[in-house]
């Protein structure tokens, strides 16, 4: 296979990992919304935790994006 083609294919495949992060982030916001509707008065206090969980989960998706970017521009 042409190395350049393999590079682009690899970058594309690496981006599949972001789907997992998508599921995770959706899970966090969905759970937050479900819990917030059950107990709206406690929801405001958990906003920081929500964003922190979102950021930590998103980091894993970012690592796969990083692999894709490294393949495209650094390899």
């Amino acid at each position, binding site marked *: 296979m042409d190395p350049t083609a393999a590079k682009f294919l690899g970058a594309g495949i690496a981006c599949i990992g972001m789907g997992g992060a998508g599921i995770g982030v959706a899970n966090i916001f969905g759970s937050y919304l479900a819990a917030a509707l059950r107990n709206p008065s406690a929801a405001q206090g958990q906003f920081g935790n929500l*964003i922190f969980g979102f*950021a930590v989960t998103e980091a894993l998706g970012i*690592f796969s994006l990083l692999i894709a970017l490294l393949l495209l521009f650094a390899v």
Partner: protein
Amino acid sequence: MADPIHQFEIVNLVPLGKIGSTELYFTNSALFMIVAVGLTALLMLGATAGRQLVPGRLQSAAEVTYEFVENMIRSSAGEEGMRFFPLVFSLFMFILIANVVGLIPYTFTVTSHIVVTASLALIVFFTVLIYGFWKHGVGFLRLFVPHGVPIYILPFVAMIEVLSFLSRPVSHSVRLFANMLAGHITLKVFASFVGGLGGLGVLGWIGASLPLVLVVALTALELLVAFLQAYVFTLLTCIYLNDALHPGH
């Protein structure tokens, strides 16, 4: 069709001389960093110039941002975290203003370059590291040894903790950079659809109206992302600083 990457190009504006074989330039990136700092200074200085007991609009805006950051620090890093208020507040305002200014067409988004966000993330990383060791000495290493873990898996847990600590500046910087980059590329791609379809004649104008509406909606979304990413960056800074202040789990 216009190149969507073109907006991130660094343009040399004013030559500043040479250091060794490296040529120094005042670039558009530097210009917009100065704009971000200038706008922040203008907001805070303008708001506090004529202080009143009942705040006006500008003073309210300044007070709201101050209290917002203050609450964030107090809730995630505790009372002692307030000694880092200048750092955290500067980071928040700089990133927020840089993100929002970047949304204006024909401007340059400073935070869409990894070198800028990595510098900011490394400032936080080394602040945590140096302050942690300065304050707690070797006790700072308790950060990597969680409390109440069985002794036979403790080495592995400690290794994972060290690894996750070292990957912090990476995810911290790439999050902001990737969000701004991806958002701005999406905007420009949809904007080029408007231009491309609009050039096809009357029927094209009808087709072009759909991406035009989308561009407006995406700009609104990007405004949210601009704020959210500034908030996330600052919140993570507070949480990392909390580790430096209270390393025990």
